[in-house]
């Protein structure tokens, strides 16, 4: 029997949905691909036709949430660099908020900077897409070639905010909101002084 493309997509979506529930219930580290397959009503072997690992499932889940966030982010003309970055990152985090419970463990597994050099990590594309969006925002504000060090500084700050947010117990994650605000002020100050972004910051 041939499986239609629609049926394939539906199964893929079901796996992601079931996995999200299981991660939330059992914790990301404890959940297994076998457990996910059972809950999704498919054979473990079938699951591997869709995702090669648990990491790949959570990476897909995050990517999809982020993609939906990106559609919602409208660029506002009057936003400064700092504001646009703030909007971008906070909207992404807001899209992930329902998964917050297990994201700390998952992020440690797929986004940790210590795993940066692991080839074929499912987190690589998330990182690449995110940084590409950030570079685009920098470009919108006249910073065309940020240094590798500047981007690494950004990523380090971002992961710090992400980690704080994932485990933040303050009401409505308000401490993370403040931390993001402070982190971006720091990042913008570290950008080259000749960039348009800096002038904008001075004008504030």
């Amino acid at each position: 029997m041939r499986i239609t493309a629609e049926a394939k997509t539906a199964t893929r979506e079901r796996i992601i949905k079931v996995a999200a529930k299981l991660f939330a219930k059992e914790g990301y580290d404890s959940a297994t691909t076998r457990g996910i397959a059972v809950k999704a009503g498919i054979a473990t072997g079938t699951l591997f036709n869709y995702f090669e690992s648990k990491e790949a499932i959570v990476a897909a889940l995050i990517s999809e949430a982020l993609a939906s966030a990106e559609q919602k982010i409208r660029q506002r003309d009057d936003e400064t660099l700092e504001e646009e970055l703030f909007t971008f990152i906070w909207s992404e985090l807001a899209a992930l908020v329902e998964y917050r419970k297990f994201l700390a463990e998952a992020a440690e597994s797929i986004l940790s900077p210590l795993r940066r050099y692991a080839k074929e990590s499912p987190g690589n594309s998330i990182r690449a897409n995110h940084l590409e969006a950030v570079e685009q925002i920098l470009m919108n504000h006249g910073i065309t070639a940020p240094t590798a060090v500047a981007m690494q500084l950004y990523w380090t700050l971002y992961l710090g905010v992400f980690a704080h947010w994932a485990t933040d117990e303050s009401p409505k994650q308000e401490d993370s909101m403040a931390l993001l605000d402070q982190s971006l002020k720091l990042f913008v100050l570290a950008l080259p002084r000749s960039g348009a972004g800096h002038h904008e910051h001075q004008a504030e």
Partner: protein
Amino acid sequence: MNTKLSDLLSSLPQDEPESGLLDSAEAQEQLKAIFADLAYKRVPVHSLHRIWTIGELSTQITLAYTALWVRGLFADTKKKEQQRNETNIRVALKMVHRLGYLRGAAIKLGQAFGSLPELLPDQVVSTLDMLHAQAPPMHYSLIREVVLAELGKEPTELFASFDKEPFAAASIGQVHRATLKSGEDVAVKIQYPGIGRAIQADLRNVTALVFPTRLTRGGESIRGQIDAMKQMLAEEMDYAHEAQNAREARALFKEADGVVVPKIFDEYSTSRVLTMEFIPGKNVSEFLAGNPSQGERDALGTKINLVAERMLYARINYSDPHSGNYIAMNDGRLGLVDFGCLQRIAPEDFKWMDNGDRFLDGKITVLESLRETGSYTEKELADENFIGPLLRHYDWFLEPIAKKGTFDFGDPEPFRRMIENLKVMVEKVYPSPPMYLYMYRTIFGLRVLCYRLKCRVDLGALRAQERKPWV
């Protein structure tokens, strides 16, 4: 504390007061530079950083005053005045620098200090006044996300219009103008995320720093006052509490009073966002800049005092008599903004007000009322050297109420007399109940405000009128 003693010593006043004296123009220049610098300061979110900075600040103030006191033993009076002046300016500049940096907690502490002229006289009071309007802003994206998190929608969806630029700085947030879809002009006060909880953590640290181990009788009293301050700050950070305060205050005034307490719009308010009726007009500083006539000054001053008396009899102390909180409306009415700092007066503390009335009725002397408090021994009450300054302080306080007819608040003589007496009082320690911290803030704050207004008010008649319904 990691602060090096050498750093602290170098921050103390120079040894040549004649040449090193800062005139106000120079102080202004320094202030400008500091404010320019402030725009780039990051708000430290890390609690440890704040502890250190506040700790350093209190040490610097203490050391600066200690050094002044020691040198004062060898200085003649004129020199002493100069040195005091210089120290005050230096300490004020340092405080402004640190306070701006610390935002929340320290700004509130600064405002409290700002109302205690015996610690920080004129220049400092006006410096802190400036600080109030100079808190660094939140950008609109942050505002939008706070409103979204609090009210479930972005400002542009919630309101018919919303100004992205704030029109005023609140001590722990900022205020934006907006229009409701139903047409009302409103002011939306928005709190910096997480600042309230951070301030409370800071205050615990400040208490630990200021009162490490040994407690004298005066120390107990100060600790009680710090506890009162903590409770007030906790309430002030909760805008839902402020909304309730505003509702209670609003019920106290009738149209004929010419006093406007803004309406709160609950469906647009939470503990972090407060939406209230916008009150158009000028704050006291702007009012004064317009060179108002004596009649206009008197009318505004009378309303400001009416508010204080009305609330006191209702057992509420409007304890933030900051010039920015009073709005002179174009139609002559007085608008009040900011109800974060309303102190409920407990029945046992209300005796203070009762005793004032008994004194005015000639039924009790100030000395007798001090005896009734039970805070002083007979030996202390009989010692002019100890109790004298306190008696003179009460005389000063009751003078405008006891006087028949109008009292001229612009007269510098009673004002100078108060400062002189406070200088003496500050060297002695008088035990006083916790509520007095805010009561003093109100009394001095109001007197400073009325002095600036140079208003003439028949306070005795006003008090009699406000007392009537309660007799």
